[in-house]
């Protein structure tokens, strides 16, 4: 679907209102990542419709909400267990569920929306893999079209449990995830992307990390729990 000004205008309004749902909503979110014009239109509506929210009757949330926030941001014992998710009894991945489960369980997306669109010949994607209970990101992710390199720099990531490895995946828009290899912890992990994998990442902008036996998944598809799912944003 082409991004005509009329479509942008109509869809941005329905996006902010919340009546745009399902695939149409997801497609529009991709438009937002691709175009500053689309984001500005969204901001227009966020600002205007935001006024509606300021007139609602206040109600103090229970004290447990604040203590929950503190607990998530600054737990006393940091680096505690990673959440396990989305792994059914048969050890098979439940694809349709991954985003919801991962979001609910562990993930806060670091949204990096800059105001200037990048020139196409050096498109850069960026993001962070974060865990809700921790202040620092686990890994910082950057990708450059010119260098064809995807880099994950560990910040607060800790080694996988004994006998396990972290494996990195591109989650395509359709079909099975594509492995980008087993990631060592403690050093920056770099992968050179070929045209095909780069195209997949460029369109889905979604990475996942699963916990696998040492050396990586024996089947070529993820077998262990998905620890993290992160979306990348264009810089």
């Amino acid at each position, binding site marked *: 679907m082409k991004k005509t000004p009329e479509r942008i205008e109509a869809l941005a309004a329905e996006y902010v209102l919340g009546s745009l749902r399902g695939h149409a909503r997801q497609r529009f979110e991709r438009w937002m990542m691709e175009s500053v014009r689309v984001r500005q239109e969204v901001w227009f509506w966020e*600002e205007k419709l*935001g006024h*509606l*929210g300021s*007139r*609602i009757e206040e109600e103090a*949330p229970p004290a447990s909400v604040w203590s929950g926030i503190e607990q998530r941001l600054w737990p006393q014992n940091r680096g505690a267990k990673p959440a396990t998710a989305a792994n059914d009894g048969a050890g098979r991945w439940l694809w349709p569920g991954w985003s919801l489960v991962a979001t609910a369980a562990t993930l806060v997306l670091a949204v990096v929306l800059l105001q200037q669109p990048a020139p196409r010949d050096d498109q850069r994607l960026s993001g962070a893999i974060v865990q809700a209970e921790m202040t620092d990101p686990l890994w910082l992710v950057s990708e450059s079209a010119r260098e064809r390199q995807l880099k994950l720099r560990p910040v607060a990531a800790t080694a996988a449990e004994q006998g396990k490895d972290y494996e990195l995946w591109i989650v395509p828009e359709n079909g099975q995830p594509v492995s980008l290899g087993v990631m060592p912890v403690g050093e920056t992990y770099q992968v050179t992307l070929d045209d095909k994998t780069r195209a997949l990442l460029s369109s889905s902008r979604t990475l996942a990390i699963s916990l696998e036996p040492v050396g990586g998944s024996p089947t070529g598809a993820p077998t262990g729990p998905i620890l993290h799912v992160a979306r990348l944003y264009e810089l």
Partner: protein
Amino acid sequence: MVAMDVEQHELMGLLIAVAREDRAAFQRLYEKVSGRMFGLCLKLASQRDLAEEAVQDAFVQIWHNAGEYHNERGAPLSWMLTIARYRTLDLMRVRKAKQTSGDSHLEHMEDGREGPLDVSLRSAGAAELTGCLEELSEPQRDSILLSYYRGFSHDELSEALSSPVGTVKSWIRRGLMALKRCLER
């Protein structure tokens, strides 16, 4: 509205401090905003536990993303309420997907206190959007406000307003565009 500006100015200062990881400022921000945010989420979801979860998630996001706020994104308060609103809508969708087909969202919400859209909200909305909502037809306005405050899907609107889905969709679409033309004047 001088009072409003002073408040937004203060919220902006707090957001800047939060971007520098100032925890005391974060707590102050929470104290100032959480009541309005919880009220909004509760209105939208009509479920206390969901609204509580949404406020919690929203503040965790605000902590991480305060540095990305900029003035094109609206006043600081609107920006924070928008984060909470999107989170509430997401959680509502997840729950609805899990609900059995017989469990109607409408039944759940209509608790006898008020109709789908109470009068106070209708008039508040009109005042905030500088009178532009009043220029819309009544069904256009109601379908927009029900989507905003109650998170109604097209199907739920169709049920609440006893009109076909196609009609409801066009009320929203035309209503929003008329609203924009008015707001831009």
